[in-house]
């Protein structure tokens, strides 16, 4: 239990590196992600230009690092939204039971009836700030699963002695939810949140690839790949190196999320 597998530690290191690079991107000594330079068109990777250049001569490495800013904002934003709203709904449903639970769970099940990406695409049609829209739309489709997990956890906790004891001691509802139930649910919700970060990053890349995410000139991993895919034969680096960086990041998130979930659950192996 206590020994951390090598893959887990490597994943944490990679995630820390990616997060730092993305957050600090404007101040890092890397090229300007928007500067075009025709002589460098589709230049191959080399010293000083690790990922080469794209069809407009822009530095692919700098664009990848800046693209991760969008990935980061969307994943954290949408997962945070889902954890706050889904968590609150789930705890309230599991604690109060009765018509409150029925109402919340019916609403959640209706949301689950829509294929997630279909709903997200329909919501992205609304006018407004693209980054905000993607965050809110993904947050909304994540709410049902968080609600279910929080509710199931609350049902399990509510049957335990310490809750009965707190109730017998005259603890009020608000205090009970906030001080007794919520702290006990946080570990499992956070472990699930990590896995959701990975799903959110994948979804953001897909939306950007379809041209429904954050619009140009802001670089995103998905739009970079969509823009360069027609020249993949001449310059595979411009398409596949950003994809590789995205893959490694999501892989690391999944490995860390899987490990944390195993620790929280205290049992392994379940898909």
């Amino acid at each position, binding site marked *: 239990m206590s020994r951390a597998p090598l893959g887990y530690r490597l994943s944490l290191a990679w995630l820390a590196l990616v997060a730092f690079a993305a957050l600090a991107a404007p101040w890092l000594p890397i090229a300007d992600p928007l500067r075009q330079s025709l002589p460098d068109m589709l230049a191959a990777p080399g010293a000083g230009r690790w990922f080469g250049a794209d069809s407009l001569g822009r530095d692919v490495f700098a664009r990848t690092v800046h693209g991760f800013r969008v990935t980061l904002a969307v994943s954290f934003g949408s997962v945070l939204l889902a954890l706050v709203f889904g968590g609150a709904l789930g705890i309230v449903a599991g604690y109060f039971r009765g018509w409150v639970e029925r109402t919340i769970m019916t609403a959640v099940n209706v949301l689950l009836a*829509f*294929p997630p990406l279909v709903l997200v695409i*329909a919501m992205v049609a609304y006018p407004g700030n693209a980054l905000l829209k993607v965050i809110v739309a993904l947050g909304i489709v994540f709410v049902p699963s968080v609600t279910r997990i929080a509710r199931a956890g609350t049902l399990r906790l509510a049957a335990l002695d310490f809750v009965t004891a707190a109730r017998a001691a005259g603890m009020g509802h608000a205090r009970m939810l906030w001080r007794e139930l919520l702290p006990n649910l946080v570990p499992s919700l956070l472990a699930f949140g990590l896995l959701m970060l990975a799903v959110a990053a994948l979804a953001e890349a897909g939306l950007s690839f379809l041209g429904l995410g954050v619009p140009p000139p802001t670089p995103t991993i998905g739009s970079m790949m969509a823009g360069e895919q027609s020249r993949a034969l001449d310059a595979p680096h411009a398409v596949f190196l950003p994809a590789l960086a995205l893959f490694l990041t999501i892989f690391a998130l999944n490995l860390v999320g899987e490990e944390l979930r195993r620790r929280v659950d205290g049992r392994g192996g379940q898909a």
Partner: protein
Amino acid sequence: MSGRLLRAFAGFAGTLFAVSVVSFLLIALLPGDLALLILADSATPERVAALRAELGLDRPLPIRYLMWLGNVLQGDFGRGIHSGEPTLQVILSRLPVTIELIVLTQILALVLSIPGGIWSAYRRGSALDHGTLVASIALLSVPPFVLALAMIYFFALQLQWLPATGFVSLSESVVENLESIAMPVAALALVEVPVYLRMLRSEMVTTLQQNFVALARGMGLPTWRILFVNAFKPSSLGLITVVGINMGRLMGGAIIVETMFALPGVGQLLVESIYQQEYQVTQGIVLFVAFAFILINLATDVVYVLVDPRLARDGEA
């Protein structure tokens, strides 16, 4: 009729109603005037007002919902603003491609994951079991469009085995149809395999510890028969659920893959409708797909009872 199925049907009706309200509001609440959009350059205040009245846009929302629902129930999903084609027919004409894509994907994913899941449960803890876990997490981390791009790069551009994009319908040529849909299917299926494989493995591990498996082994039944017949059936309930639920995920994957490979399916139509602001088409697809999705969930419940008749009596999964 068992309690479980009855409740499933009651829930089905309720969900359908709620889904129709959400689909309606999703598009009805969009800012912007549909009448203005349709008339475009020829818009004068009088003509806009007349068209708004004709479309019922000047009425309160609940009335508009009922009018819309009435039309939908009669099969009228509205018409495209630019094309003027009836939305339902456009969706239906795109449907076969998406269905072929999803069905072939599910078949390929199951063909790959069932033996893999059974084998890693049988040899659990082995290097092979550990290897499939890492490979599963890796596959789960690849966006389907990256997998698709990699396939296009290797199989279409480098090796030139398969066409990069384009679609040949089944009625034109079966072989060319399969060639045109092979990469999209593989890209979608490979992402589903880890989900199915891990699900089956974890249930299989539990089943293999039960007495009847030891009994079957004691009776001298061959290992492959115990694994693939005796132990597989009771272990397949979770897999059935996930296959049902995954239809929705696959629909999402189909949107991306159809757009990439220029497959004329419902997913591509959805993306086009957003680009072209054909919001009635968007609405129609949202409603249609959600409806199909609910039907599939209902069918999953029915299959459940068929596989395990005890569920009909217990009423609990």
